């Protein structure tokens, strides 16, 4: 119950931020512009619209998590809200979970709204919304859940700038993590191999959650794929959140 209350107030504070509206307007404009400019790519109009739309949803969702999430933790500390809340009968675990749930709720709303605009643009361009497109949106939500967990972890012990930097680094590296495994396999020597393999397993495999290509080209996804990646994303986010609670429990609130 306390987690829900905190999540509600966290979400409410995000929804007051002007930057949320600005970013969403920008994302909508980008999607509409893809519709306007798509005739320039002769024969690939539909693919351009779908690709740009799905990419915009993913990029803007992650950007919002970093922009709003890191600032939110910092502002709550600066304004004494964190201290006031932790003086009440709530545990630090509940606080972390409440903040996390509020941020994920904000990302979900943003993704659903952006996806709605995207679907509208696709319909306007004369195409049909496919299952793969919906799956791509769903996986963006899962990516948002992982990125929020990472941000929660980093924000619990570092400044907003460092927290954002660490999160963005993880997102970028997470999209190239499969290259690390290839790199590890080709490496000579045991230590570099172990380090590269370790980094691969440590970083989130965000490319696993990217099915844009399948959505654009209408390729079929393997059976049980969605269930598998859902399990992966939930497990990864849970482990990172657990670490965040450990860090936050040991932290002093001055």
């Amino acid at each position, binding site marked *: *119950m*306390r987690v829900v*209350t*905190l999540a509600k*107030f966290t979400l*409410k*504070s995000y929804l*007051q931020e002007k930057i949320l509206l600005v970013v969403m307007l920008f994302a909508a404009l980008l999607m509409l512009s893809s519709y306007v400019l798509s005739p320039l790519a002769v024969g690939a109009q539909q693919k351009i619209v779908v690709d740009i739309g799905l990419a915009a949803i993913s990029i803007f969702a992650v950007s919002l998590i970093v922009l709003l999430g890191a600032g939110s933790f910092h502002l709550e500390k600066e*304004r*004494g*809200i*964190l*201290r*006031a*809340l*932790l*003086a*009440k*009968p*709530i*545990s630090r675990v509940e606080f972390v979970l409440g903040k996390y749930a509020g941020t994920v709720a904000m990302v979900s709303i943003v993704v659903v709204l952006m996806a709605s605009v995207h679907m509208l643009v696709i319909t306007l361009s004369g195409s049909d919304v496919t299952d793969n497109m919906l799956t791509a949106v769903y996986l963006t939500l899962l990516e948002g859940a992982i990125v929020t967990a990472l941000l929660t972890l980093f924000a619990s012990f570092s400044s907003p700038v460092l927290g954002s930097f660490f999160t963005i680094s993880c997102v970028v590296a997470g999209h190239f993590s499969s290259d690390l495994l290839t790199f590890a396999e080709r490496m000579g020597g045991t230590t570099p191999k172990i380090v590269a393999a370790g980094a691969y397993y440590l970083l989130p495999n965000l490319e696993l959650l990217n099915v844009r290509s399948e959505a654009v080209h209408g390729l079929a996804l393997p059976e049980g794929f969605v269930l598998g990646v859902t399990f992966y994303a939930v497990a990864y986010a849970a482990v990172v959140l657990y670490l965040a609670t450990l860090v936050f429990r040991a932290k*002093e*609130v*001055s």
Partner: protein
Amino acid sequence: MAILELHAVQKSFRSGFLGIRTPVLKGLDLSVEAGEVYGFLGHNGAGKSTTMKVILGLLKPDAGRIVVFGKEGAGRETRARIGYLGEEVGLYPHVNAVEALTLVGELCGMSRSQTRTRAHDLIEQVGLSDKRAVKIKHYSKGMRQRLGIATALMNDPELLLLDEPYSGLDPIGRKHLRELLVDLKRQGKTILMSSHIVPDVEAVCDRVGILSGGKLARLMNLHEVYAGETGEVEVTIAGVDRRRLQAVDYGGTELFSKEGLMILRCAGDRKLQNLIADVYSSQGHVIEVKPLRTRLEDVFVDAVREARAGEAPRGANEREAALTRR
């Protein structure tokens, strides 16, 4: 029965590039009895806020024990019985007073109807009825402080920890708060209130502890403080030529002099008798002779000075003494 006890609590903070530890609390012992209002006085940076945070478990002490309601530390159950108002009020700016109190009520495990009733009562009590629907970001400092007091009272706490509660309040707000604290005291609430403004503490507290040098430098009952006489008197006289009086050695100081009225401070010994005799012999008259009582402010200043002198390195004591003499 003591509701709150601190035993030899130590707390230091890392500072600077090398992270050298600076001690703030150096073995603080404190005991707050049930139903009393305890004034926690100290100069800026003495460690009053740190003490409150240590009690609430927001900061971890380096050493020592904290016992609240007979239990070690401030766990969730203990915090449910405490109300806290920090230096910064700590409210979400985008919500209104009712929503802010609803958040606190729900976090304290109160039911929705209980929360709503209590929130409206408290808003009334702190004088924010006409501002209940206004977002907190539009509140003045004083209004935020009043709402902060309401949030501290939301769970009907047995123990209230108030860190500089008068901060930012105008005279009307101060008066309201004073009355509210007296009322809470009457209800049997235990209050630990920190401040560096002496009159605020004098107005409501039963006992006063002065924190200086990381320890409790003095602990006293306020009625004991006021019972103490300084041995000096304040004499108000009229109808005497000032130059004539200046010629008399009464061993005191002139506090005020205007249009034949003078207020003098002098020792209440034989010289006072000489002064009075001289006034009457000069066709003047004595309006008032008031024995001066010990003031909490003086006790506070003395305690801080003593603690600082005890801490100062060799040579600094003499320098301070020389400055005081000057």
